[in-house]
């Protein structure tokens, strides 16, 4: 695998996953 490809996808993927996890934590309050 291309090193540059992995780094670029991590740069966009990590913040996105952080945002998704924070949103899911909030969304769970709807059903608890």
């Amino acid at each position: 695998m291309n090193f540059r490809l992995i780094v670029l996808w991590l740069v966009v993927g990590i913040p996105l996953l952080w945002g998704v996890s924070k949103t899911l934590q909030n969304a769970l309050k709807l059903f608890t």
Partner: protein
Amino acid sequence: MPASFLDRESTVAPAGYNRFLVPPAALAVHLAIGQAYAFSTFNLPLTKLLGITHADPADWKLTDVGWTFSIAIAILGLSAAVFGHWVERVGPRKSMFTAALCFGGGFIVSAVGMHFHQLWVLYLGYGVLGGCGLGIGYISPVSTLIKWFPDRPGMATGMAIMGFGGGALIAAPLSLLLMEHFKSPISTGVLETFVTMGVIYFMYMMIGVIAVRVPAADWKPAGWVPSAKAQRLVTSANVAVDLAWRTRQFWLLWGVLCMNVTAGIGVLGQASPMIQEIFSGRVTPAAAAGFVGLLSLFNMGGRFFWATTSDYLGRRNTYMVFFLLGILLYSTVPSLGHLGYIELFVAAFAVILSMYGGGFATIPAYLRDMFGTMNVGAIHGRLLTAWSVAGVLGPVLVNYIRQFQIDHGVAKAQAYSITMYIMCGLLFVGFLCNLAMRPVDERYHYRAPKPAK
């Protein structure tokens, strides 16, 4: 004169370049500008700039601050329409760089406006300058991605435009974290947060500026052969931007986008009070915030899912699903509310919002199918004026009709029913526009000028 780093010539990819390096470049820009959807996190702190812990009589009013977002979205559509041709001409790197300057600069100018407590500077900074960054940044990578992925144009543009939906998921918690960090007895922390976010977003968008590449003119994916079987609504010709907007197809697509966005955007803006009023006593404000988050998640996921699906289903059929399923869901939502089926109510809106996002993400590929790749970015820019109109129409419909009904004695829990049926009507108009779609007449097709003898 040698080409500068920002020129299109400097971005042409060498042979063997991995095309999957391009979507993250586009995502870096879209994840940044998607912050716009989370602007409401600043609304209350902006009304306490002088009072800090409370709103001072001299502080800005919430309704005045609210205009900042509306101006930014209106300028988004206008700048995409005005600068679309320029973006197409100069290429993705220079346009992404301009977008980064405008968007990052918009935050800094807004911070200056807060420092001097001048509301018009906030409008100028985030609304006008930032709005230009939104519009230019939104369309910058679209035609580049379509050229890199002629075999999967829906998936490629869906990936980038998904970033615009995802940007809010990052920006909302990031803004809260930063404001909490900078908060002090003499500051709400919002001014410092704007400066920090301006710098962060500029640098983040620069990753896209540096990484983006355009394919060589004769490049094709390895082993890919364009389908020999002619598809009725997929052209192999090109239409120039100045002719495209004079065609019937452009305005039908304008109607398709406008109706699809209007039906979703009003609900998105009112989701929190709506669920609390319909399920009065059962949904707390915290749970309602969770509902808004869930809708944002489906708005983001729908962009990738539906745009990718459209590569297999066809663009027109995908919009048919949006409109027909949308009508079905909107017409059942009032009953689900009255019967108290909260899980089904949430699920219905999650699907509706996925189709709202899907509508945004599938439209560039639909334009490519109708008008070819030559000026697709510029045509997309002009089509985004439909978003500006929908951005006003959707919230006005939802808010004013609700208020009108409450003023006439309708209970709050029932005040949304008529709005939902009006949304069905709007979706039906979109359905008719989509149904009327035919190939663009050959007289509009681009013909390269014959070389002089």
